[in-house]
């Protein structure tokens, strides 16, 4: 079991938070918007806390908020706010200041994702997946037309 800290609980962050909690991990979520707590609860039989999750309201760059959310104990840090620059900044803070063993960071811009990946960050680029999916679908449509 790992302790996973997720900063930014939008659609991606909250979904990953719930599935990791269901798989038996300890999960703490930090988000500046109380609404994201509701997103974690939505459609669930129990509240996020009753299911064993942690939630902290605070800003990603606030050291106190990160500590309160448990960054010092985290095995995995996920930066999944809606801002690439915020994600890349806090991911590097988690890596260098708090020495979290595993840091995953969402970067929408493929070029920046690629460059920071080359610098040693584990970047995940949803845009890249979308591009690949579109290309794959379009190729199969083209193949069908030929056949």
């Amino acid at each position, binding site marked *: 079991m790992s302790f996973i800290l997720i900063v930014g609980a939008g659609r991606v962050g909250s979904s990953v938070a719930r599935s990791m909690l269901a798989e038996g991990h300890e999960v703490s979520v930090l988000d500046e918007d109380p609404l994201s707590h509701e997103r974690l609860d939505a459609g669930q039989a129990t509240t996020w806390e009753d299911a064993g999750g942690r939630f902290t309201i605070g800003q990603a760059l*606030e050291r106190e908020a990160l500590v309160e959310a448990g960054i010092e104990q985290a095995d995995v840090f996920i930066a999944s706010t809606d801002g690439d620059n915020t994600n*890349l900044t806090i991911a590097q803070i988690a890596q260098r200041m708090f020495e979290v063993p595993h840091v995953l960071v969402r970067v929408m811009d493929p070029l920046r994702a690629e460059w920071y990946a080359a610098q040693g960050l584990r970047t995940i680029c949803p845009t890249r997946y979308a591009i690949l999916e579109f290309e794959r679908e379009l190729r199969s449509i083209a193949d069908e037309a030929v056949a």
Partner: protein
Amino acid sequence: MYAIIVGGGKVGLNLTRELLGKGQEVTLIEQLRPRYLAIEEELEHVVQYGDATELWVLERAGIQRADLVIAVTGDDEDNILICQIAREKYLVERIIARVNNPRNRRYFELLGVEPAVSATDLILRLIEHEVPEYGLVHLLDLPGEQLEIIELEVGAGSPAAGSSVAAIAMPEGSLLISVLREDGGFVPRGDTLIEAGDQVMICLDPGLESRVTPLFNGSR
């Protein structure tokens, strides 16, 4: 020299005007369309529209040949990222970043983005300079060179008051470089007498501060 300035707010726009006035080549990048259009009326091709955290926007502005990148947007994460990318990816020799929230300064340092300039800190220093009761004022820090210049007011009854410069027991690695008195400033000699109320500037190794200041602090 070619400079790229990111962020066309008051700071960025005035910096751009100043550097243009000094005959420097400058490109200003602004990401808000209405702001960009307003600046373009004055500066024309000097300003470019775009998000400078995107690599292609920086490349379009010619970052490969830039000597200086200055990030002065209102967003600390943007300023950090722009300067980090400029230095580490494009090997830009000099970067300057603006710190909006002084509490974020440690992150600029952590990610190697220096110098980082904070208006709040600058104003605080000015206040300290105008109000010597605060004691020691940092005038210049050169961490790379292990040097700083500080200003101190000579307190009545301090070891330095009434003593010649040569007789003050300054530790090795520190030097009294100038004296400000009512009638102006001057560079002292060994036999210059230091008076209570003088403002003295001292160049020193940062580690020596705690040994130097007691020599000038009076019995306040």
